[in-house]
């Protein structure tokens, strides 16, 4: 099979999760000003300190400009044309699946991740976010027995204000960057998680996000605190309905790993990437960062297949001595998708260690960039980093770039960087074909092999889902 044909077939697949759930919603008028922020805060019944926190963020945001250093091109969103609040009207407390909106259940069935199925899965607790408001939280009771709090951030503001006030904005300050400031001002929902001292969370905590209402931006806020010597594995995955206009998404995720704690944070991201001509698709501007105290460990694992534009750098501040940061990433771009993604490993403490494994896959006319910073502070004696950034190109119309930055202020540090670029060869495809494996399967097999080091980091059920997503993102309509 010729390169040309392979390319066409690969780029020929349409987004398979394009559907739209009709749930009545309660929307704020478009635009952003202090009144809208007060409206959101009032809608969510928030305490005064929270309203003030938002207003402060809004005032900071007003003075900031959109970043333009990333290797991406997109029409700048009109922030006054966006509606900053949308909530399902029929919100009420649900005790069983019977009470969940049947439309929503259908949506999950289409995704093959119906709540029903999820509940049966080996102890996966879910906090489902549809259009910014939590609809369903499961397994809360079981978690509560261990003192684990897993709820929406809105509920946390109401029920655990002391924890939220103590930690919110401590890892990603309100003024950190343009999108983080915007998120701080207008976030409507997201997840909150607290693992008490010495508790090992017995199940994977899982949140499925879903952007659903035309024209609404989505501003998720996640705050996860692992207290001393605790452990948690957190999963986040999302898909979005097919949509013509661009949807803005600017989430903030903050992780706090106190002494001896460990957090595994896994993401499978499959938002609508736009059609084959580059029309539509989600703009994804995410700030994800974690801080590690002494002997703590944070692992970010991400499989990114969606969005028209991705701007995302899950990072670790290795503050405490002997702390460990890891970043495992697969970023797929196809058609006209653009991704500028990577990580920052900030080594502050002694004997801190970080590992970066980044696997980029570019097809179609897409553009993928790895951008990473490894920074070794003056007190980070014997800090170590290993980075490996690989790119896999499909066809000859895509672009892959690597921007590794290294700043070292301590002579005892050891920083290693490796990079490779390869192509899926016709020879590999033919070899698979000859063994009875068709083109789509062959590409899926080769790509999954290439991403193995990252996929291995995901929990089992999630790895299977991620493999399917990779195949869906890259397969063509062979026939």
């Amino acid at each position, binding site marked *: *099979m*010729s390169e040309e044909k392979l390319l066409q077939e690969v780029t020929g697949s349409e987004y398979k999760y394009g559907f739209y759930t009709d749930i009545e919603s309660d929307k704020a008028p478009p635009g952003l000003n202090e009144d809208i922020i007060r409206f959101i805060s009032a809608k969510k019944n928030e305490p005064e300190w929270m309203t003030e926190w938002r207003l402060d963020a809004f005032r900071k945001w007003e003075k900031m400009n959109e970043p333009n250093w990333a290797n991406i091109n997109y029409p700048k969103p009109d922030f006054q044309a966006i509606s900053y609040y949308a909530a399902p009207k029929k919100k009420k407390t649900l005790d069983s699946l019977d009470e969940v909106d049947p439309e929503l259940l259908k949506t999950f069935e289409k995704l093959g991740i119906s709540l029903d199925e999820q509940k049966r899965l080996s102890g996966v607790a879910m906090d489902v976010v549809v259009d910014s408001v939590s609809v369903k939280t499961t397994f809360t009771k079981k978690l509560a027995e261990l003192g684990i709090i897993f709820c929406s951030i809105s509920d946390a503001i109401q029920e655990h204000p002391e924890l939220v006030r103590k930690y919110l904005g401590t890892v990603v300050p309100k003024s950190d960057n343009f999108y983080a400031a915007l998120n701080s001002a207008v976030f409507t929902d997201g997840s909150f998680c607290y693992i008490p001292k010495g508790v090992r969370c017995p199940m994977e905590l899982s949140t499925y996000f879903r952007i659903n209402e035309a024209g609404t931006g989505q501003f998720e806020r996640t705050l996860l605190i692992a207290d001393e010597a605790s452990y948690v594995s957190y999963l986040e995955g999302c898909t979005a309905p097919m949509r013509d206009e661009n949807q803005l998404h600017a989430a903030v995720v903050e992780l706090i790993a106190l002494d001896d704690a460990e957090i595994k944070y896994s993401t499978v991201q499959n938002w609508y990437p736009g059609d084959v001509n580059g029309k539509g698709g989600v703009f994804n501007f995410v700030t994800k960062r974690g801080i590690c105290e002494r002997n703590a460990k944070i692992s970010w694992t991400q499989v990114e297949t969606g969005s028209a534009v991705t701007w995302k750098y899950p990072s670790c501040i290795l503050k405490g001595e002997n702390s460990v940061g890891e970043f495992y990433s697969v970023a797929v771009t196809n058609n006209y998708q653009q991704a500028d993604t990577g990580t920052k490993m900030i080594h502050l403490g002694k004997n801190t260690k970080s590992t970066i494994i980044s696997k980029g896959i570019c097809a179609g006319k897409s553009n993928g960039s790895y951008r990473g910073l490894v920074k070794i502070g003056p007190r980070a004696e014997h800090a170590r980093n290993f980075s490996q950034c690989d790119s896999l190109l499909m066809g000859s119309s895509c672009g892959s770039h690597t921007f590794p930055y290294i700043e070292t202020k301590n002579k005892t540090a050891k920083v290693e960087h490796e990079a490779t670029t390869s192509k899926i*060869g*016709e*020879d*590999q495809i*033919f*070899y*698979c*074909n*000859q*063994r*009875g*494996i*068709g*083109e789509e*399967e062959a590409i899926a*097999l*080769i790509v*999954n*092999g*290439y*991403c*193995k*080091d990252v996929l291995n980091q995901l929990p089992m059920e999630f790895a299977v889902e991620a493999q399917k997503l990779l195949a869906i993102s890259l397969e063509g309509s062979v026939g």
Partner: protein
Amino acid sequence: MLKINNLHAGIDGTEILKGINLEVKAGEVHAIMGPNGSGKSTLSAIIAGREEYEVSQGRMDFEGEDIMDLAPEERAHKGIFLSFQYPIEIPGVTVTNFLKTAINETRKAQGMDPMPANEMLKKMRDKMSLLEMDKGFLSRSLNDGFSGGEKKRNEIFQMAMLEPKLAILDETDSGLDIDALRVVANGVNKLRNKDNAVILITHYQRLLDYIVPDVVHVLHKGKIVKSGDKNLALKLEEKGYDWLKEEASTL
């Protein structure tokens, strides 16, 4: 089983095969020999369905059906197997996973359910002992970092697992030391039966000491210039190809 009539084919406008006629019947072993550049590997690639080659003339039937328009994987599903001269590396894909996919895709095409895991494992174990292979092999990345000999052995292992009707072994002997050659040849012999056939493509007589062919063909400049029994191979070993080249040019 395989019937090729007046096959003309080439690549990028250059004709490499200039009228091949070949018939292989079930239960037979054919050896195709010939000097470098005579078109041996082109012939095997075309039988397997490699699309870079253009077929300008001729006909190719497999079990009575014209397969010229079939995709390589469809030919594989019908039972055509090619052991590659240079097996391809697929990093990160284990031998097990690759074989599982290959077997189950083939079964799917034949309307069968996937092979149960325990059955597959047992089969893998049986075939590995047949080829005197180490168990650790299964969890290694396909051909990635394999020695030349390991790659060839892995090809024959795949053949044993897939149980094709027609196996084309393209220079399977190259890169094998004498012990490995014996093991591989022994494996091939054990897999032979009255319903399958083998085409051996080789430069040397050496392999034919172990896998004895029913027919030997000599390919030269894109044509089969001589066919005979196993003694033809011995004669080639002794005299080289030059006498045949002369004979061919006088035709």
